[in-house]
């Protein structure tokens, strides 16, 4: 699928090197409403203004007592400032985005313990301002970093489960191919595809033992999922799409098809062994989800992925589902840092899923209408723009969780 495998954020090496730092300092929780009921909330007004041609960010307090602190943010006239963040040790504890002159003021509340913080206004004449909190605050429940890492750990189990299911599914595909049953093989092919497409961007950088990223003969993604358009002549064609061509274009199974099916089972088995050690950082999930949507745009909407079977919408749905699974794993932690973004991404996922639902067809192989050149011509624009609406906010997620 990808000719460029090692550039992914999820290379085996980076996965192995993960070290989780349990957050000890200044953890905060964010809430867009003022939830404090004990009257102990400190209010801080953040005002963004253009003064003498410069965009400025001013705060009316630089200190607060430990406890809930509510930041009221108003962009009065600073066209170059679109966000305000509260940071500690370069980690975001709370923020507001989409700020622009003329919009109603917005606020976020964080519970802060004693320590040094910064109010960060990217684009302002003075971007970083110190904010000091004295005393202690009750430890909030559920630390953001812990929540995100819990999500990442759960997601690793999900990926292993999907690869495990794919391992079973390709065996069924091989059985049908060995019997020479084209129709059964087509069905088994359609059943097996979504498992890979759901987690593809998380597992596309694995190599055979002793292999090298510049040798496709040792690249499991190449061996499992290469399309005809990207074939390396030295290595030849292997995997899913070679079988797809035989079943749909040739409409027959020969010894070559059987060889492809056997290889596929072997290679997926090797992948299944390798993923058992998978570990993720939260930003890996975010990058993986973004990678899956990139796959949707570059391979599925164009109809290049399933050039013979036209099962592209089946893969499309699986890519989106996989991205949504990754996002869902991050959601409990993300809601604490940026509830607005969480809501926005959730809403865009819902929209894409709804748009895709229009193509469901229980009678069709894989459960979705065939993505024929005719249908693509008519609807590719619509689906592509729907995905773009999701891609953009999702692309900001990795930074967000990495800084949490």
């Amino acid at each position, binding site marked *: 699928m990808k000719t460029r495998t090692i550039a992914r954020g999820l290379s085996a090496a980076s996965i192995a090197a993960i070290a989780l730092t349990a957050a000890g300092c200044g953890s905060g929780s964010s809430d867009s409403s003022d939830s404090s009921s004990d009257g102990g909330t400190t209010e801080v007004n953040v005002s963004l203004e253009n003064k003498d041609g410069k965009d400025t960010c001013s705060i009316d307090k630089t200190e607060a007592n430990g406890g809930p602190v509510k930041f009221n943010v108003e962009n009065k006239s600073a066209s170059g400032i*679109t966000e305000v963040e509260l940071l500690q040790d370069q980690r975001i504890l709370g923020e507001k985005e989409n700020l622009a*002159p003329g*919009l109603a003021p917005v606020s976020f509340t964080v519970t802060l313990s004693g320590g040094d913080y910064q109010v960060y206004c990217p684009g302002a004449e003075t971007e970083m301002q110190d904010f000091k909190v004295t005393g202690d605050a009750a430890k909030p429940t559920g630390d953001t970093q812990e929540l995100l890492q819990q999500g990442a750990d759960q997601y690793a189990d999900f990926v292993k489960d999907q690869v495990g299911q794919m391992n079973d599914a390709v065996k069924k595909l091989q059985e049908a191919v060995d019997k020479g049953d084209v129709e059964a093989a087509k069905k088994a092919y359609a059943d097996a595809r979504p498992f890979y497409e759901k987690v593809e961007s998380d597992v596309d950088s694995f190599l055979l033992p002793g292999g090298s990223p510049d040798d496709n003969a040792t690249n499991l993604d190449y061996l499992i999922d290469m399309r005809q358009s990207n074939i390396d002549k030295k290595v030849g064609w292997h995997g899913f799409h070679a079988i797809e061509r035989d079943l749909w274009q040739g409409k027959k199974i020969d010894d070559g098809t059987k060889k492809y099916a056997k290889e596929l089972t072997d290679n997926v088995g090797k992948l299944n062994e390798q993923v058992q050690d998978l570990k993720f950082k939260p930003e890996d999930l975010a990058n993986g989800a973004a990678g899956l949507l990139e796959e949707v745009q570059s391979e599925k909407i164009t109809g290049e992925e399933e050039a013979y079977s036209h099962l592209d919408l089946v893969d499309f749905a699986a890519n989106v589902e996989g991205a949504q699974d990754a996002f869902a794993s991050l959601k409990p932690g993300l809601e604490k840092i940026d509830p607005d973004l969480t809501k926005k991404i959730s809403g865009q996922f819902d929209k894409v899923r709804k748009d895709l639902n229009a193509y469901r067809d229980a009678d069709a192989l894989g459960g979705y209408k065939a993505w024929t050149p005719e249908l693509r011509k008519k609807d590719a624009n*619509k689906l592509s723009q729907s995905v773009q609406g999701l891609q*953009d*906010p999702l692309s*900001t997620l990795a930074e967000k969780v*990495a800084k949490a």
Partner: protein
Amino acid sequence: MKPDSGPKGIGRRGLLVGGFGGLAAGGLVSGLSVDAAHREREASAGSKIAQSHYEFYDQPHPVGVSTIPQQYSVFMAFDLTLATAQDLQVLLARWSAAIDQLMQGNSIGQVEPEHEQSVATDTGEALGLGPNNLTVTVGFGPGMFDGRFGLAAKRPKKLAKLPKFSSDRLDPAVCDGDISLQACADDPQVAYHAIRDLARMARGSATTKWTVMGFGKASAQGGQETPRNLLGYKDGTRNVSTDPDHEKFVWVGDDDVAWMRGGTYQISRKIQMFIEIWDADRVSDQNEVFGRFKVSGAPLSGHAEFDTPDFHAKGADGDPVIPVNSHVALSAPENNGGVKILRRPYNYTDGINSDGQLDAGLHFLAYVNDPQHFITLQDRLGASDMLNEYIAHRGSAIFAVPPNPARGSFIGRELFG
């Protein structure tokens, strides 16, 4: 704004000589604010370029209308997919703030953020190019007032889809739109960057519908020499140019909804030209089609470009010297109850069409305070213009263009109570 008022900063002559606007000799001038002190990492690439720029806030009229035409234009129309009036406010507010930054020659955020997991806020291709007299004009189509956002009662009185005219050969794929942006600049990449980054900002809120890239201005203001359209003729010799004519024909007065006062209506027509057929026509016939001489631009009844056409002058054969169904005769104010429109078109090309012909023409843009003025003219032109043999109107759209916001506000804020 006076139609002949130049941009802030260096003089108009400096711009015209430069073409690409690059490095004029004027040096830094007060009011020139490409200072990017707050973007230190990127300042060295983006600052200190001595170019003039236009102001976005606190203007009496929308920018990009009576503004001296810049060399290039990128126009993009969108359909709104956002759900609520509040989402629409956020889009208009973000666009307004970003347009202000872009018009000053700033990027709209970091091009190369420090955090390794960050995506860039600004896409970067205009970094270091300077403002290049960029203006961005925002238009509201009829669809914005269809009730989805509770704005039906705020609809500009004269904003309605244009009727189908005789000779129209419209392609729905390049027609209409709920909202539009036009970037004009003296560098094509500056104009494209503005539209690209604003479109990026709209993802999830609006879908792109059609776009036209204008590679050359085809109208003049403020003493510019009249440029030529792709048929080789001067375009816009008798354009609206004086302040009184702007008040009378272009700027919306107090007879429309209050928030449109000082704004205008934008008429967009993508007009394809049958280049190969035109090129094979003898020049004497081409002159008759236009009613003007090709090189001088003079009316067939006169000798110099700005001679007033004499539609009563008769030739030796007793026929009018300027044919009654020539382009100039059919569109002249004298023959249309005095009606004038402000034209601000751009030449475009879409490459080669599927029939192997050059695919090019005029992105006709006109500004009126009453769309009926354009309708009156196009009714006649569509029915009898000799030029119709060589052109086809493919795209049609209308947008209400509100005046620019005050500092601290955003375009269209008055719509939201």
